[in-house]
């Protein structure tokens, strides 16, 4: 590597050393949730069915009990992991004798029967497959997605243990090669981006010399960076996008890369409440399987609210906060995982005080290539992250 490159990555290398010192890698691996055995899943599903028959044999109404996933009271925050479900949590009952809930009851059983077959045959299906196999019963993809998450919570297993894969929407590009479960070799070297695999658990033989990973919030920004050949300019690196709110596979991929490469991960999001929310998803996911989806060491590279002042972004590129934005910022500041991030809190408070937000595209009002040629290289070179 040239002297320029060495100097360029000096701050990033320092960060990496810091991260490796702070994070007990072995402990992390041990903390990783053991994949529930296939037999365990089958036994759990059989338990649900037997419970239904036991109720019927007693002339009682079968009821499915699901942990309540929509209440903040049901979760607690662990700084090493992120958000996770409390051991004592409220539940929702799904009755089979009530016209308002019987359809959901039936949908849950249908998906359980699909999962049972998948696990038994060691095959996989995407959520999309499940939906399209029975459109009339489910009505919408969202219903299938929600029920699969409910089942994951009910059986207390990660979703991938159910052999149900999420359809990936994310893209990845950069210094990275790996093998998929079926042996397909994937090379993410940047001529164009590659779709993130559906089966992250099956990925092996990851090879990369990347110095860092950059998570880009928006697909438009990601494409712009590819067009500007950022992967070459800042090589070696990996760029990844979840195209907005990062989907499970994108998050699993980031986590897998962290677990394998132990390199800094930077997030590039808009300086607005939604961007900050997406950022927090990467760091502290509200998920039953937070252990495997979050990377507590994600750094906020940009666009920082403090950047707007520092760079004197033209006012006509700034957008006033709406009432909804202000409410969202208030809500974010109350999230337990942010209290351990004083620098992030300062940035959010700055956004509140300035009452403006901005997209990454606003940097092009300074200069058309400002983002790729000046902002990002300087940020990475001089440690401009929080």
């Amino acid at each position: 590597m040239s002297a320029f490159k060495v100097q360029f990555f000096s701050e990033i290398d320092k960060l990496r050393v810091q991260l490796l010192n702070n994070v007990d890698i072995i402990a992390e691996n041990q903390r990783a949730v053991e994949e529930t055995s296939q037999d365990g899943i089958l036994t759990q599903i059989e338990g649900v069915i037997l419970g239904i028959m036991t109720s019927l044999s007693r002339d009682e109404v079968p009821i499915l009990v699901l942990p309540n996933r929509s209440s903040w009271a049901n979760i607690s925050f662990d700084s090493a992991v992120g958000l996770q479900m409390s051991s004592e949590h409220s539940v929702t009952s799904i009755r089979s004798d009530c016209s308002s809930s019987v359809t959901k009851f039936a949908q849950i059983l249908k998906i359980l029967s699909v999962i049972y077959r998948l696990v038994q045959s060691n095959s996989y299906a995407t959520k999309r497959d499940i939906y399209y196999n029975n459109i009339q019963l489910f009505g919408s993809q969202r219903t299938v997605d929600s029920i699969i998450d409910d089942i994951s919570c009910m059986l207390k297993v990660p979703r991938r243990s159910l052999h149900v894969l999420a359809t990936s929407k994310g893209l990845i590009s950069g210094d990275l090669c790996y093998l998929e479960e079926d042996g397909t070799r994937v090379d993410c070297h940047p001529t164009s981006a590659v779709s993130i695999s559906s089966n992250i658990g099956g990925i092996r033989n990851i090879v990369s010399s990347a110095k860092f990973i950059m998570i880009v919030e928006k697909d438009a920004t990601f494409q712009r960076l590819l067009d500007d050949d950022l992967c070459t300019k800042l090589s070696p690196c990996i760029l990844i996008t979840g195209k907005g709110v990062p989907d499970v596979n994108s998050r699993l991929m980031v986590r897998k890369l962290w677990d394998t490469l132990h390199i800094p991960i930077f997030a590039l999001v808009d300086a607005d409440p939604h961007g900050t929310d997406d950022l927090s998803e990467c760091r502290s996911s509200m998920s039953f399987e937070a252990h495997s989806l979050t990377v507590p060491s994600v750094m906020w590279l940009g666009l920082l609210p403090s950047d707007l002042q520092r760079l004197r972004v033209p006012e006509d590129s700034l957008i006033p906060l709406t009432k909804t934005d202000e409410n969202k910022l208030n809500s974010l500041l109350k999230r337990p995982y942010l209290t351990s991030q004083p620098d992030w809190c300062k940035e959010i408070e700055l956004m509140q005080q300035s009452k403006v937000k901005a997209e990454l595209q606003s940097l092009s009002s300074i200069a058309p290539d400002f983002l790729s040629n000046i902002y990002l290289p300087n940020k990475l070179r001089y440690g401009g992250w929080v």
Partner: protein
Amino acid sequence: MTLACPSVQVLRLIQLMGKQRKRSSLKNTGALLVLLWTEKGSSHQRINCTVATAGSWCFGIAMHTLQADLKKVLLPGAWPCPEPDPEELSAFTDLYGSLKFLLNFQMKNPGLYSSKWQAHVKAFLQTFGLTNAGIRIQLKFKIHGQKSQHDFSAFLISKVALSVRPPLILDVTCSAQPWCDQRGSWCQKGHPVVGERFPLSIPPKAMDQGLFGELSVQIVTLLSPCVLQYPHLPTELSRMQVLVFSPSNIPVSAPSGFFQTLPVALDYQHLGLDRMHCRSSKAFPDDPVHGDGVVFTVGQENWDDPEQEPSHLPVQQSLLLLLFLQHSDPFTSELTDKMDCELLLELHLEDILSNNRQAVTSALQAELFNTMKALKERKKKREKLQSAAEVIISSTISIVSSSSNMDFRSACLKRMKVHDTHGLSASLRESLWRVSSWKRLPKAGCYSAQQVEDQAASNEAIRAEM
């Protein structure tokens, strides 16, 4: 009962006098005795009739002023008759208190002794008791040595507010119990639904005879048996009966000519009914509910499913449509004039209804629509449950069939008391049907059999105090 029947006239008189005194509904309680009897050796064409009342519903009627004059006016076909057996009257007063009204007269009519006529009298009084539920009715026949007694009283009553009329005291006791299963704690009470009042125009022919003023009709519907507490039990409407009441709340013969054309006039298919057929109540004198009404048999779509389990057959419901005629004429104030107006109304009822065919048909259609709407919603919920049940069963069978865990499979078959997965499917279906169909949601306002007994005891106490 013909409208000129003396007994009917007497009842009409008592009712109109009550209205004239602006009798409050609280005073619509008491008892009525109708005694039809013959003397030894009397002519076969003569029958004696005693009408007696007790209780507050006849409060204020001066008996002595009625005896002579009103007999002439009201009962032109009546003759003086001997006094009835004092023991009959004392048995009545012992139960219901002192007599407030007593009228004896004799009728001459060849058909008076027939069992058909007796059945008509019985049906008439029973129908009278339906909308005058505060009155306990005793009907006694003592004809040539043969005695019979019929008592009509309501266990459960409902006060129904009508427009421009004193509130009705309706007998809403529902004795009909669904056949299907004795495990149900059935509501013994009907829940009357009051429809809109709408005006009727008086046809010229009736006006020529002296019927003027404002005429209107209000419909009250009563669906039985009540299955509100069992929201998932399958039901279907199989019978409809129309009863008409005069302004003085006396049952009136529903003109069969008009009502027989109703199935053609009503868009019953829009209501979700497959068929509607008018049958004459005269052809079914033993109809368990009420005579003198018009009865329709109706059938719903997908009625007869030959594959349906007998225990899954829907509960048959019957709809009673009560048409209350209301008439006011500011130029009619005398009791006798009001009596005449009522007679004219009944005489020209067929004409009146035909003259207002569209309004009457629309009103009946609207009431039927409301009833069927509720039934359709039940059916929709039922279908949702059935559709989901099929998914539940198929998913369960899929897991059990494909499981290699013998303990699990055995436990499932044992729980459902079957030998194989084929039997398991049927057993699951039956069990799911049972737990969902028999789901009971207690409703305020619905009375179980036990509550009816308690209410009857309470009614007895109240009557004893009176």
